[in-house]
């Protein structure tokens, strides 16, 4: 397993979390890969929902954009954007939201708007998209982000999405909120990762669970499925 990348572990861990989900709302990139993989390895009936309006899409390949034709062609239904947000997301009909972000703080709140000052930004990011309402509409939010001090920051430059994630999955481990005060706690490290290394990549004094575990390594089957999917 020495040839497994951190990104592969991250994607497989995210996919595993969808074992019992009925439906999952996804953007592009790693979250999309994880959700498509989940249909192959743990939950063939998982309903994939993209904010382009495709509900129940069954992509065989990883789409470049959330509006790729294959998503519409394979969906159970395709709805206008207004309907997607008003009738499907806002009432909580989608179980799980997979979200990414440029910055995550210790509460799991997200910034995807701007780095630096709003009026004079150092880096202008794409903005909110569907994330704020997806995070509040879905029962379970899972954040997927690369672990670095630039991403895991003590203070967001902008609070775009008031997420309360049940888990934050990084390329180093898994963080979950403390049941008492909601602050993210490192509960799991991926194989070969030391807790100190996670602290080094986190922009605040990271709490580490006394019951810190290690991520079960990807199985041959999981890895084969992921690599076949990426290669398609």
């Amino acid at each position: 397993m020495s040839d497994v990348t951190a990104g592969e572990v991250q994607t497989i861990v995210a996919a595993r979390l969808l074992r019992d989900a009925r439906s999952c709302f996804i953007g592009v990139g790693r979250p999309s890969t994880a959700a498509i993989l989940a249909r192959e390895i743990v939950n063939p009936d998982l309903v994939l929902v993209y904010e382009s309006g495709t509900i129940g899409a069954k992509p065989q390949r990883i789409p470049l954009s959330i509006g790729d034709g294959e998503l519409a062609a394979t969906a159970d239904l395709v709805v206008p954007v207004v309907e997607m947000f008003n009738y499907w997301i806002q009432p909580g009909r989608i179980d799980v939201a997979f979200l990414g972000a440029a910055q995550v703080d210790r509460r799991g709140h997200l910034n995807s708007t701007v780095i630096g000052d709003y009026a004079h930004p150092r880096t202008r990011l794409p903005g909110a998209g569907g994330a704020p309402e997806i995070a509040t509409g879905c029962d379970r939010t899972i954040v997927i982000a690369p672990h670095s001090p630039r991403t895991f920051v003590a203070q967001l430059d902008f609070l775009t999405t008031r997420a309360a994630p049940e888990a934050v999955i990084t390329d180093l481990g898994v963080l979950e909120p403390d049941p008492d005060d909601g602050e993210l706690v490192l509960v799991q490290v991926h194989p070969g990762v030391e807790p100190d290394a996670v602290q080094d990549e986190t922009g605040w004094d990271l709490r580490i669970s006394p019951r810190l575990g290690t991520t079960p390594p990807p199985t041959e089957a999981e890895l084969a499925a992921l690599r076949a999917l990426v290669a398609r």
Partner: protein
Amino acid sequence: MAEIVGLHEAVAELVHDGDSVAMEGFTHLIPFAAGHEVIRQGRRDLDLIRMTPDLLYDQLIGMGCARRLVFSYGGNPGVGSLHRFRDAIEHGWPVPLEIEEHSHAGMANRYAAGAAALPFAILRGYAGTDLVRHTQVASITCPFTGEELAAVPALNPDVTIVHAQEADRSGSVQLWGIPGVQKEAILAGKRSLVTVERLVDVIEPRPGGVVIPGWVIDAVAVAPGGAAPSYAHGLTERDNDFYKAWDTISRDRDTFAAWMDEHVLGAPAGAGA
């Protein structure tokens, strides 16, 4: 009944300097041919409206057509940044760009309110985010339950432009595939232009087809391939390679300008890019 006209004429007639202009198409049926014609005609000071600015608005912004942008997600989907959009916001190049941003839910509901001739829409959203301090949103109380909700103002663009698969000779159009907010945007617009892949004698309703009657549309122009590099479901394919190539083309001001010169300014109306 919508007039069937040439793209040059349609844009000349319907889009004026200083107008608020919505070009919609959610990852699909993006009206590139019409947007390029706006660029060729040198429109200025536009108040550009679009949920997902995408490459088309990156081009309009980079060519200095816009004074202001109203949007909810300004990225190159699956690729990364929109460099002209960033350059305008971060450095005011080529001209300063005011912005007003929302969430997708807010933007979609703003169009829906505009289409319904209501002054505002309500939703659960915005609360507790920094968006509240930087955009048009208000709090409103449910008169029955006392619950606090967000209110966003209606959008009624001066002109809305969308692309569809087909039109008949009365100017009624049909689009299918991902429907986005096109219907709401057309109905919310004070004027409207639809470019289409083809004219047909009779519109045969399709599964998932959205039909918009010609009597709520001002002009229809035939522009085959007019959604490229996005696509028209069932007729053309999305050019994913171009979306990736745009990252390089647009990163540098001079490379961008040269590309626009060659592929847009030098191209005839309706040729696409």
